[in-house]
């Protein structure tokens, strides 16, 4: 359907741009335009309460703006109700109420008079724009020493958690899944029971409605959700120093690329951990069976490393093409809250 500022004929759908929204009606003649509520902003529109299908002149309908007429393509022209029937239907509905800004507005009314079904392209466009907005939200939570491990969805994940022999690991696996549920709910309004969560042959959990990545380590759980492939990794700085403090140079040799080895000063464990989490977040954003850190460049524009003042002692990295939309949240006692974070550079502790 195209819109042209051409002379409308009886039974045509017409519209006028008022501010930032279009007002729609069915043209009968110069003195008769049927529309759902008078044009917004006019005295007759008032506060928009109890709007009814009404008749105004074309001049009043236009509010001094240019009236555009719907020009249907061949397919639409075949599907449309005849102009005479459209005019009759529109006139027969004068006085009808039930206006709704989103689900039953002036565009729904006009479209229904022409095609027999309600439709609003303004509503569809706004919904499409919202659902395709860039999202990359990270959620972080401290895992308490006492976690009551319950059941999760889907059953395959529940079985995997239940089969985990190590009590602490079982608690972490349960908790990070609970955090995922909170993340999906807050970022997308999804419930876990409506997602088709499944485990791939690479051992990565996926679902068709959104992308996500999980990590848990030494008392921290973290989840990233996005509408583009995403990976997240977190490491505990204290634990890393205790375990690997004496092997820094050997580890750097194994995990850094040639370029990174030239860049790295060879002694700072936090900097090495930053490299590591960046590489792992990049790997986790991909569906690949094997991880080759020494071949994975960590310095990409889509990777951010960060620390959270509220949860000190950890280095986290997240990778995703929507990194510009990055937002961080903490999760505590079943509630999420926006969190401040400090970005750190690759290789800088």
């Amino acid at each position, binding site marked *: 359907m195209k819109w042209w500022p051409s002379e409308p004929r009886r039974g045509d759908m017409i519209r006028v741009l008022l*501010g930032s*929204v279009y007002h729609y009606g069915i043209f009968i003649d110069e003195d008769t335009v049927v529309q759902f509520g008078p044009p917004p902003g006019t005295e007759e529109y008032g506060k928009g309460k109890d709007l009814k299908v009404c008749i105004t002149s074309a001049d009043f309908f236009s509010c001094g703006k240019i009236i555009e007429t719907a020009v249907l393509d061949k397919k639409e022209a075949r599907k449309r109700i005849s102009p005479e029937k459209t005019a009759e239907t529109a006139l027969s509905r004068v006085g009808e109420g039930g206006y*709704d*800004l989103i*689900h039953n507005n002036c565009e729904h009314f006009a479209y229904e008079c022409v095609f027999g079904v309600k439709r609003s392209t303004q509503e569809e466009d706004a919904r499409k724009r*919202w*659902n395709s907005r860039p999202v990359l939200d990270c959620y972080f939570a401290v895992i308490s020493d006492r976690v009551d491990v319950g059941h999760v969805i889907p059953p395959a994940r529940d079985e995997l958690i239940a089969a985990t022999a190590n009590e602490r690991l079982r608690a972490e696996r349960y908790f990070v899944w609970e955090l995922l549920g909170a993340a999906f709910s807050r970022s*997308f309004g999804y419930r876990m029971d409506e997602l088709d969560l499944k485990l791939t042959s690479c051992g990565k959990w996926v679902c068709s409605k959104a992308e996500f990545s999980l990590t848990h380590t030494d008392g921290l759980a973290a989840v990233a959700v996005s509408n583009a492939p995403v990976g997240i990794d977190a490491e505990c700085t204290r634990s890393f120093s205790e375990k690997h403090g004496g092997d820094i140079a050997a580890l750097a040799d194994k995990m850094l690329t040639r370029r990174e080895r030239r860049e790295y000063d060879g002694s700072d464990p936090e900097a090495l951990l930053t490299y590591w989490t960046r590489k792992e977040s990049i790997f986790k954003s991909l569906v690949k069976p094997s991880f080759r850190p020494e071949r994975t460049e960590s310095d990409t524009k889509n990777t951010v490393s960060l620390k959270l003042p509220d949860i000190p002692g950890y280095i986290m990295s997240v990778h995703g093409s929507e990194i510009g939309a990055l937002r961080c949240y903490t999760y505590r006692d079943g509630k999420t*809250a926006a969190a401040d974070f400090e970005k750190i550079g690759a290789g800088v502790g």
Partner: protein
Amino acid sequence: MQLTRDEIMERLKDIMISAGGGNEQIYRECTEDSDLSADLGLSSIGMLYIVIAVEETFRIRFTGVGMSDFRTVKDVIDYIEEHQE
């Protein structure tokens, strides 16, 4: 799970920041008394966008809502609080 007014407010701010195009500071600092049009600068299409985003995020369906039903942030929070799952 029922959200508190504070939680609804925080999520609404997220929505307005995503929808508002660069006015993050204004939305971050808004209060329940902030006027959607005069204080936050929302146009009618911006209002439509936010109402749809609220439907998607809070899983509620607005019914019988007119363009002028929501004058302040409080009006939106009241509606969500009353209609949330």
